[in-house]
């Protein structure tokens, strides 16, 4: 960041826009850095986020969807907010074309604890739009030099309907591989859907991953989390071995503006990744 001022965004350019869903309100933006030194400084780990910054509109904290093993760019999957609260930044971003320049601050926050995950079996559970930093983690683990550092990888990913699944091409590729077990489900299919139907908690129960040497990484809408957690407790996962990522309203992203605290922890700096055991130590204020 310029002059090491953490509030000043670095300039990035939209290199590619991918429309992820039928409803056209979730797009993946691929950014390249305008300054080579910014790219070198932007060293991130899956689970971290960045502040997308558009002058005249504001900033939005968004999880990084690409993996650090993908070089030369960084990707963010962004939903156009605004059904309840007008989302100025995400709306403006969705209206931009490839080639446009915006600002980026980051990488921010802690990350999925890679060292802790090493040599363990990883169960990734995602629901709907909250799959972005999980995709980063999966692609990181699947990277050829990294794969042997992790045990079995199981992915359970669900969306309300087939049109709302993110990263469809990648999901298809993962399904072909034999070093990752990929289970895709939708709440309700359509004429062309040949895959599984059912809610994520039920699918997790069917899949019944073993808790032995395993860590569950779970992200999704609150309702999915609520019903998925009991399944994992029943399977024998301890609270230390269930990880999730919190959301709070953020501004600075560096633990200064005092907005995103849950108890003594700033979600932007001490989080967003917490284990359930850590969350138990915090007041229910999120």
């Amino acid at each position, binding site marked *: 960041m310029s002059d090491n001022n953490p509030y000043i965004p670095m300039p990035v350019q939209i290199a590619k826009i991918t429309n992820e869903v039928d409803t056209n309100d979730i797009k993946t933006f691929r950014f390249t850095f305008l300054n080579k030194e910014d790219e070198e400084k932007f060293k991130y780990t899956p689970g971290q986020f960045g502040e997308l910054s558009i*002058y*005249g*509109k504001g900033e939005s904290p968004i999880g990084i969807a690409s993996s650090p093993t993908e070089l030369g760019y960084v990707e963010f999957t962004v939903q156009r*907010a605004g059904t*309840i609260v007008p989302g100025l930044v995400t709306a403006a971003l969705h209206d931009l074309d490839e080639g446009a320049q*915006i600002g980026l601050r980051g990488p921010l926050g802690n990350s999925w604890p890679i060292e802790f995950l090493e040599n363990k079996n990883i169960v990734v559970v995602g629901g709907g739009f909250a799959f972005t930093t999980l995709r980063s983690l999966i692609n990181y683990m699947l990277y050829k030099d990294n794969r042997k550092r992790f045990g079995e990888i199981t992915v359970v990913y669900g969306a309300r309907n087939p049109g709302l699944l993110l990263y469809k091409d990648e999901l298809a590729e993962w399904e072909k591989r034999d070093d990752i077990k990929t289970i895709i489900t939708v709440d309700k299919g359509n004429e062309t859907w040949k895959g599984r139907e059912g809610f994520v908690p039920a699918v997790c129960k069917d899949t019944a991953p073993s808790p032995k040497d395993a860590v569950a990484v779970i992200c999704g809408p609150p309702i999915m989390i609520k019903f998925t957690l009991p399944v994992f407790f029943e399977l024998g996962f301890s609270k230390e071995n269930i990880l999730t990522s919190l959301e709070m309203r953020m501004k600075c992203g560096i633990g200064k*503006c005092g907005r995103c*605290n849950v108890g003594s*922890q700033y979600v932007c700096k001490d989080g967003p990744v917490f284990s359930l055991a850590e969350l138990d130590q915090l007041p229910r*204020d999120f």
Partner: protein
Amino acid sequence: MLKKTAIEKISQLAAVLMEKGTLLAPVKEVAGHNFAEINDPQKVDLNFYNTIISPKGAFFPPKEDFIKYKIGKTITEAEQIKVDSKPVFLFGVRPCDVKSFSIMDIHFNAAGIIDPYWSQRRKATTIFGYAYDLNQPVDAADFYNSLGIYAADPEGSDIFMVKKDKDLLLKGITPKGEELLAQLNTLVDAGKDDEKYYEETLKKGKEYKTRFLCIDQDVIAKKLEAVFNNNDFWTKVSSACLSCGACTFVCPNCYCFDICDDTIFGKGTRRRVWDACMFTDFTLEASGHNPRTQVYQRLRQKINHKYSYHVKKYGVISCVGCGRCTRSCPVNIDIYSIVEEALKL
């Protein structure tokens, strides 16, 4: 080194300081005194109890501009705004407020990423602490004794000032203060009796009693954690709360801010402005979810942040007992009473 000047000649001292840099000092306004940048040395007025708004604005101004830009231009054409590096003299700060700076330092200047604005402003500033006038009655709202602060504590000041009848005594505390004091040629050397008076005032400061509550920071931090879910208690103590931001804006230790883009006629500024956890939309997410929709949740956040979360995170209570929040509250909510009641639970 102890120097002195007649209080009626304070404008001469002000004029010298204005030549050397920016002078921030108390000036009289309709409602009371506030710190302001001095353009006219006659305006400096030391005849005050304490300012309405804390002096935190010297380092953390109500608005701090980050970047200026033009709408429609590219991001690389935006202009970063630098903090003026001119020396600043913050004149006439009460001991409790001086203490607040060192507490804010932990957050802005030590923990994790350093805040460049706070840090630069802090470095450029010389602090003239000013003992409370021990002959004036204590304001009923004050409780800085409870936080281990006394009316004539020089700690944290670069230069500490004590009023002696019609004179002002100035003592160099830090090397920075000593050096500056030596340069201020409107001051004269203090005599033996002044030395004695100064020392006695520091001692007598301990006897100048505000409200006192024995607060062990770890005990109160744990207590507040334990009563977090006691909705009856929080609803009761917050029932009068209007959920305005007066308490947080006058507080020397509240540091929450918003980052916003203010635009007009095609020009814009990215800046930070003071924000308050008492505002309804403080935690309103773009999804529409808001973890703190109720007044009691917000007041609970404010008090817990100061007396529990801050202790857990930074090892110190984020309050100096200056009494401003109580004095400024339109409905007389008193944080001291709330802490007192919480301790009884």
